């Protein structure tokens, strides 16, 4: 099997690089954490990798708005390299803060296929507070990242995750099928009785892709749902299965997103 090479960015307060790297390793990729300054100083090259991951975290403390300062650093130093990366047959994943960074960079949603224009924003949550909980998501486009998945449950943890775009942009997103995931009332929301939309996102949007579906940004964390025992109700599931003498499945919903990316290169 051909193992794709993954680069996971770190530095300046990004903090989910280890679990993102682990997710790809678990799914069969070769994955490496690289500090952004090591790319800027040309010790590492984006072009040596097939998948670029901007993981979650608190880059620059969200100080000027989430993802803004890190995006500015990427644009100042790496813009050409990034453009040549995304123009090839390569994948980009932005999780949470990484999604905010990709949105600020204008890599997402790149409505007309042109990169670099800010078209969407991730704003302060409706409750104006950092919020940690699990959500249910419905898959609403055919991005390769989501192949074979129709619904899934993942955790969120963010202060600025409210998806926003102008009416015009929303229409285009809808029409061009760029909305990848929407919050909905599924198994978890029903069981633990929480609202479907955790942050006030317009039209329940949780994730979008670029025109090719290869650049994928989402607020929820698939990297925190790799195993079934990360699910908030897994003890109940375990007990139920134990009584039926069935083993708990190994992987959680998030794992399959990483697996899809690996499959894309290995099949």
């Amino acid at each position: 099997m051909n193992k794709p090479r993954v680069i996971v960015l770190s530095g300046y307060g990004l903090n989910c690089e280890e679990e993102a790297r682990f997710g790809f390793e678990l799914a069969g990729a070769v994955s490496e954490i690289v500090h952004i300054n090591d790319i800027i100083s040309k010790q590492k090259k984006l072009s040596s990798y097939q998948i670029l991951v901007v993981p979650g975290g608190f880059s620059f403390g969200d100080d000027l708005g989430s993802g803004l300062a890190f995006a500015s650093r990427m644009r100042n130093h790496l813009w050409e390299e990034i453009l040549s990366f995304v123009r090839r047959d390569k994948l980009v994943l932005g999780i949470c803060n990484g999604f905010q960074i990709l949105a600020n960079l204008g890599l997402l949603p790149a409505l007309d296929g042109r990169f670099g224009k800010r078209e969407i924003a991730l704003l302060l949550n409706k409750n104006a507070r950092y919020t940690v909980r699990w959500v249910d998501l419905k898959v609403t486009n055919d991005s390769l990242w989501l192949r074979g998945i129709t619904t899934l449950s993942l955790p969120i943890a963010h202060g600025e995750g409210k998806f926003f775009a102008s009416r015009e942009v929303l229409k285009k997103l809808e029409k061009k099928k760029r909305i990848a995931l929407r919050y909905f009332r599924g198994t978890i929301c029903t069981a633990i009785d929480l609202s479907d939309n955790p942050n006030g996102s317009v039209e329940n949007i949780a994730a979008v892709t670029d025109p090719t579906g290869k650049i994928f940004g989402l607020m929820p964390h698939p990297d925190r749902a790799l195993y079934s025992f990360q699910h908030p109700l897994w003890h109940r599931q375990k007990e139920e299965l134990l009584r039926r003498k069935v083993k708990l499945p190994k992987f959680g919903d998030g794992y399959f997103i990483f697996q899809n990316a690996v499959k894309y290169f290995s099949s």
Partner: protein
Amino acid sequence: MIKAPKRGNVLITSIEVVPNIADPRAEIRKRHIENLGLAQKISSLAISDIYTIEKSLDRKAIDQIVSLLVNPITQKATGKATLPQFDWIIEIGFLAGVTDNVAHTLKETIEDQLKIRFKDGEGTYSSQRTYLKGDLKRNDCESIAYSLGNPLIQSLHVYPYTDILNKSSFFLRIPKVLIRTVPSVSVVNLDVSDGELTNIGSLGIAEKDEVRRGPLALDLSSMRKIKKYFKKLGRNPTDIEIESLAQTWSEHCKHIIFSSEIDEVKEGLYKTYIKHATELVRKKKGKKDFCVSVFSDNSGAIRFDKNHLLTHKVETHNSPSALDPFGGAITGIVGVNRDAIGFGLGAKPVANTYGFCFAPPTVKRQIYRDKGKKHPMLPPQRILEGVVSGVNGGGNTSGIPTPSGFLYFDEDFQGKPLVFVGTVGFLPFKSGKKKLYEKRARSGDYIVMIGGRVGIDGIHGATFSSVPIDSNSPVSAVQIGDPITQKKFSDAIVKEARDLNLYNSITDNGAGGLSCSVAEMAKESGGCLVELEKVPLKYPNLSPWQIWISESQERMTLAVPPGKWRKFSQLCKSRGVEATIIGKFTRFRKCHVSYKGKTVMDIDLQFLHDGFPRKHLVTKKFNRVSLQSSVPKITDYTSAFVDMVGRWNTSSFEFISSQFDHEVQSTSVLKPLQGVGRVNSEATVFRPDLTSFRGVTLSYGLYPSYSELDSYRMAACCLDSAIRNVIAVGADPETIALLDNFCWCSSNERERLYQLKEAARACFDYAVSFQTPFISGKDSMFNDFVGFDTNGNKIKISIPPTLLISSVGIVSDISKTVSLDAKFPGDLIYILGSTNDELGGSEYFTYLKENHHNAIFHSSVPQVRAKEFRRLYKAYFHAIENNLIASAVSVTRGGLGVSLSKLSMAGKHGADISLEKLPGKWSRDDFGLFSESQGRILVAIDPNKRKQFEKQFKGFEIGFLGKVTSDDIVRIRNRQGKDLVVTSLSQLLNSYRKKFANY
């Protein structure tokens, strides 16, 4: 809006950014103001952010910055005419010298984007405006401003909207630190009377203008020791020498009360009762000893598996949190993270813990620090909200999960809240051949400071926290944290430099700043030589003593061998971390400090560390004499049952659990909120190594309400609960370690010392009996407030003596862990352990007293029978290993009643139980329900496993209580089979979630 008037020769630009779509911040702020009782008066509100840049920039540069700051989709930069007409503006910025993280990032980003540098004297600043419209008077706006900001750290300005039209330079009030005095070192004459020595010790060194510098917390006997030492040297000390001794000898750093001889206990409480307990346990465990490093480093450490060890440390940040709750809490949590990073050669922080003791938010009594009532203490609700957002800011921003914690309320925490924060660290035993849990600075190593720069913030923090809060409390001790600066060096150290073997030792710059960290590491090599002018400063003109003792946050000190400096410094530079050589470690037995070539401090290391006077403390036993009435009877058990789960001390605190990230690092196994009913659990489980299925469980025990009745039993209950809570979820009873945090009051009073001694004695007895070693601890001895009430009368508020026992246990297979929710209808409910008439200090008695005009009645504080309990816990662990337990609730505050509610609410299943088989000696139904007898676990099991379960617990005191039901009714029958309690899940959940519904 952009303005560029001149200030001196430097142009100042302010950029105001307002949202052009609905702003949730504004909506929430409006609601906040309406809650202040101004609902009728306010019609609209808007919030803007202001970025001020003090640097000459051309138009193009300013445009570039504007387009960087303004998100065109949602925001705009305003001119004065673009905002609708408002009546008032409240502008809140930081006071000069207070950490401004937004400004810091702005500066860094401008430098990167525009490829320019800010020079000395240039800078960036952030502030925020609230625009108000409505029928508001100036004093309304001032009280709003006070409710939004804290004058100890922020500047609060209120002005009419028209001012913005008339005056062009309103928000250009730059909070810049300008120290006009020239840095100097003074000699302190100690050839003075005892009276003056006492003054110097308690109020501080007098400046030329007679103003005192602030508390040194040195008593007369310490001052005399210092006088004698310098007399022998034939000179008077410098100010920096006295300040340095005050830091090193402070109660905060030396724990004098815990280390002094007390009554017949020659070696003091710490050595005799805490350290010795650990020694005995380790000896008894022999080859099964799992301690790796105890009491000697920044954290304590135990073995996690063959290749890794686990560190834990719990700190308090009480005094700073009382004055500035947000700043106190964020610096507390980020500070204790450095106790992990500073363990051995650097452990990675993998979990935070918290515990907050406050006065109930409903307490409205206003108290002041001064007789003139100019300095009010913040109301309890502000302190609660500030502390919660401080830990939120520190933990979340640093990317460290914060799963485990608690809230506890008592009116006597109004003067000084307790803010406990802890950090668990994870590190391999070895990197190559090098042991990572040991360290030693060597003579010749560079002394290297990394992280933030030094300012006058945080001066006298260590000495301040060693005395009660009063009008002399230095407000400069209050600070704000900068988690990203720390995150950058934390990553550089624990993820890179450590494994490249680039340094020999590392420690935290916490209390006492460089004076403590450098002097502490100097013990390893045998001395130090520091050149203070090399220390990077936030602004010029700090005097040497200030540089030396400043507690400016987010700094660590390392010992870097000269041959590795180049590589180390390059690594730091490439990670955006400032690292500076500030001296050398030596072997000359001296702490030698110079400033611009001149010696300013030259003290024997031995005297610095061990010269403090030894004390002999004496305690006095006392009996609380009180008239006692009999315990009132209740008739409505259902109401009591429902009320008991909605008390301040038993309520859901989901609003905290759902804003402290416990999923980051992808390690959570058993979360803080459990079951479909989202019930707060006492213990959580996480998995520090992503490739392993071994887990760590964390919990705590804390019973301040027992202290005044029997502090020995209080401590015993803390240990038992802390241990049992982690066992209940699946910890192996043989691999549990403990941490002690004593927060006492008035520790100069003999009766308080008696209580302290009793509590410490219990720590020894039970740690040994349970075979649970202490690995780390910390104490805080003067949690008193001395101030004034609204009538100007002097008042003293002391906290109830409080012991926090934190527990950390290893779970060998996380798939065996058990959550607290009832799983399926038909499951059988049992109680393990016996229930007795033990309600002294219980939550139920407090409840009864509140409902019976504060009548006084007592009962005994629960007794811990360690031998018997330990046997039960071992049997329970076998049951867990054999998958016999479906649900488990460790019975703590509120007794069986609250535990049963939690089991039912979490599973959203009803229950039908009877007290008929409730084992133990209990005389009344309500006592049986709410007794806080220790050693009990409430469990539910699969009915098919009944035989196996009962066999496992044969010979133990356990009782079959009833069943989980498929309806939503919780029903409890008394011994005669009559209904005592009949209530519904929705009633219980309403009560459980009511207290913090609006948080």
